[in-house]
């Protein structure tokens, strides 16, 4: 059997390393030339419960999984019971024979471990080895990927995998696709890489799903990268540390989810008036409030648009896959510095904790001109009223200069004023920055156009629904419109990609159609909204059916 695409589900209890095993499988598929996406489903607990990952590889870029799988790797009986029906008729079940009863490739994990005198944590290597054999892949695939993916005691792990590999039988053959092998990363990692690329100096994060792993990723490489990573007492402290840091000249970012973002909005408004750059990575999850800590949603767009008292310029982006996350995290950090304003990068649990093939060669390198003005301008005026609204940026200490930033309405020197003309002049200055940013954004290709680009029926989507819409758009002959920048809303680019659209379906993971509400503000009526809000992303077959019904 020749596979243009392949799906693997691996499941077991929390604490059994499902996520890491899933990553290994994703890398294996990547190694074989597949474009990969992994969806990781886990409840909010540490041990027990049921975790599973679905890894899908295809011959084109993808961003969603199916509800059916070709391989089911079961670490326990529950996995067999819960997911057996997802297995296609030709599908292969690989299972721990000492923990489950089933038909298929039985892996006697306990025995194999005992034979190698290896600890229980290495059990997954056995399953993986058996999977590689059952999938008809060469041992080389297992060896190469495991060597890279497993940091500790690789030799024992390899011996165990090999034993399982040797004992298992070939059930089908996932042969190399011939395409270039691409690395596989989580969305959190892609964001981290973008920040690193753009010269991040400080990252502050208070743990919160789904961005905790961005914190962990950055700190685990912090020393090497010479980036400081701080976990402060609260999200409020996190963003204020970032603002203090920016004031003194170092690039800073913070990451959180909706609940933590609530505690940052006062500082966001401060960044607005004080004209301080900061990037907030906002990983959305199911709400309201604590909601479902480990499940997904796209329901913080309206919050991000209005967060913080009063009007102030802000940048809001919602990249839709790893390539975009990396590119736009880097670009956002640059833009916050150029325009001295806060930016929010909207992600969600699907993106943050899912895995994607990353294609840096394809990745657009957004060019941002950071030459603001003569940096050594003197005498220096922090809030000089320039035509662009952007004042030159200098940092303390600057001999002979006084550099003041201020949360009150202030004069050009940063001294508090209640004067009415200055109040208006400073608001106008900030609005000029916003217009400049909007112009620059229009030139950055801020609205992705995909699928069948000439179709008159369009799918409008944002963030993590990019991949699935792209896939279905191509398949079903629908145009796909995905604004990556949501604010300042790229009106001209949006109008351009909408030319000829007669009907527009909005696909979103929230209950009110938040993007549909936004585009309506700009005159685009999208009454056809396809919404999902049960914490899970759309599955390919599911959305295909929904669209089929809606369009007909």
């Amino acid at each position, binding site marked *: 059997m020749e596979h243009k695409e392949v799906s693997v589900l691996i499941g077991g209890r929390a604490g059994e390393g499902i996520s890491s095993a899933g990553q290994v499988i994703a890398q294996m598929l*990547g190694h074989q030339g597949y474009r990969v996406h992994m969806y990781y489903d886990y409840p909010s607990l540490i041990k027990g419960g049921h975790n599973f990952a679905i890894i899908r590889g295809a011959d084109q870029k993808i961003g969603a999984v199916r509800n059916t799988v070709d391989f089911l790797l079961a670490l326990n009986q529950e996995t067999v019971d819960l997911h057996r029906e997802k297995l296609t008729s030709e599908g292969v079940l690989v299972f721990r024979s000492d923990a489950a009863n089933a038909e298929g490739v039985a892996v006697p994990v306990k025995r194999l471990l005992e034979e190698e005198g290896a600890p229980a944590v290495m059990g997954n290597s056995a399953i993986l080895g058996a999977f590689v054999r059952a999938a008809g892949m060469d041992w080389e695939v297992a060896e190469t990927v495991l060597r890279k993916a497993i940091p500790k005691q690789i030799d024992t792990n390899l011996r165990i995998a090999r034993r399982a590999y040797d004992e298992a039988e070939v059930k089908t053959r996932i042969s190399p696709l011939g395409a270039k092998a691409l690395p596989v990363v989580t969305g959190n990692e892609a964001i981290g890489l973008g920040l690193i690329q753009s010269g991040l100096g400080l990252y502050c994060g208070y743990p919160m799903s789904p961005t905790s792993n961005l914190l962990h990723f950055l700190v685990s490489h912090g020393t090497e990268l010479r980036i400081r990573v701080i976990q402060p007492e609260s999200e*409020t402290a996190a963003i*204020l540390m970032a603002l*203090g840091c920016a*004031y*003194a000249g170092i690039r800073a970012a913070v990451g959180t989810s909706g609940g933590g973002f609530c505690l940052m909005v006062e500082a966001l408004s401060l960044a607005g008036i004080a004209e301080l750059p900061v990037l907030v990575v906002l990983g959305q999850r199911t709400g309201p409030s604590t909601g479902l800590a480990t499940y997904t949603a796209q329901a913080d767009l309206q919050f991000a648009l209005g967060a913080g008292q009063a009007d102030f310029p802000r940048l809001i982006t919602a990249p839709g896959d790893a390539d975009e996350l990396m590119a736009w995290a880097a670009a956002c950090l640059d833009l916050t510095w150029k325009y001295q304003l806060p930016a929010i990068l909207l992600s969600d649990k699907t993106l943050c904790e899912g895995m994607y093939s990353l294609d840096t060669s394809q990745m657009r390198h957004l060019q941002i001109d950071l030459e603001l003005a003569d940096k050594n301008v003197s005498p220096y005026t922090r809030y000089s009223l320039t035509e662009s609204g952007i004042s030159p940026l200098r940092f*303390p200490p600057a001999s002979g200069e006084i550099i*003041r930033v201020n949360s009150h309405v202030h004069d050009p020197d940063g*001294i*508090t004023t209640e004067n009415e003309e200055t109040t208006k002049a400073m608001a106008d200055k900030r609005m000029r920055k916003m217009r400049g940013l909007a112009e620059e954004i229009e030139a950055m290709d801020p609205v992705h156009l995909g699928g069948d680009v000439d179709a008159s029926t369009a799918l409008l989507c944002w963030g993590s629904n990019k991949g699935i819409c792209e896939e279905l758009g191509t398949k079903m002959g629908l145009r796909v419109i995905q604004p990556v920048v949501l604010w300042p809303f790229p009106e001209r680019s949006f109008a351009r990609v909408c030319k000829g659209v007669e009907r527009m379906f909005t696909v979103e993971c929230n209950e009110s159609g938040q993007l549909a509400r936004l585009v309506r503000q700009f005159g685009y009526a999208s009454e056809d909204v396809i919404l999902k809000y049960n914490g899970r992303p759309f599955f390919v077959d599911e959305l295909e059916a929904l669209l089929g019904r809606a369009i007909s």
Partner: protein
Amino acid sequence: MNLISRAPNVWCPGCGNFTIQQALKEVITQLAAEEYPVENNVLVAGIGQHGKLFDYMNLNGFYGLHGRTIPIAAGIRLANPNLQVLCVAGDGDCYAEGLDHLIFGAKRNLNVTVLVHNNRVYALTTGQYTPTSTKGYRGRSTPEGIEELPLNPLELMLVSGASFIARGYTGRREQLQGLIREAILHRGFAFVDILQVCVTYNNLTRYYNEHVYDWTKEGVEDYEKAWEKAREWDYNTDAKIGLGVLYRHRAPTFEENHPVPEPLTRDERRTFIENLLDRRV
């Protein structure tokens, strides 16, 4: 450079804040003559009457949010530990809204100076009780007198790990000046609770004048002694009110634990990314 700015000063005549401003000005002038250039100072202000110092001084500054001087200061110090950061905070500001941050500043031994203009009232919002108001204080939100006992900020700071703790009084300018100087020169979290007279809403001048006395500097490194001294007066019951340095202690600072490394070059960053991605194929 004139350390007093062109901004018109609108504190009430007789306000203790003038004394703090004057003392700070003297200290910064002195230190500038020694080894701390004026431009290395950054004043981080909270919101309240105290915060107006930001406008009145010709110093670098960050006029932030009500209660949030400490994390801003931490960020500045993380970016550039050569900057001398002075937090100018109020009692409402940093004993109520921002108490959490204050405690964590102390716990981390962040190397900043915190001057609390403790007038024991929310002055700018017209006189409500604060965490250090005396039991029975009648303000606009407690016309019948507040029923709670005040917090003792010195005790709180002591148990939180502050490595320099002092109490000053705006009725004793020279001493206050000395305390501010010591606080700035201290390496670590330097906290000065300043009994600042608010002539309009909480004029305790007479009370303070009758009760204050000077602590000796002996044994300021002794935690137990510090604790005893801190407890002499609970900000409520009649007692002698000690002024001076309560406690001092040298410990590693937050910034020492998080030194600023030479950043990677663009190429080094690219190489890092390539290597990492190589491990993911």
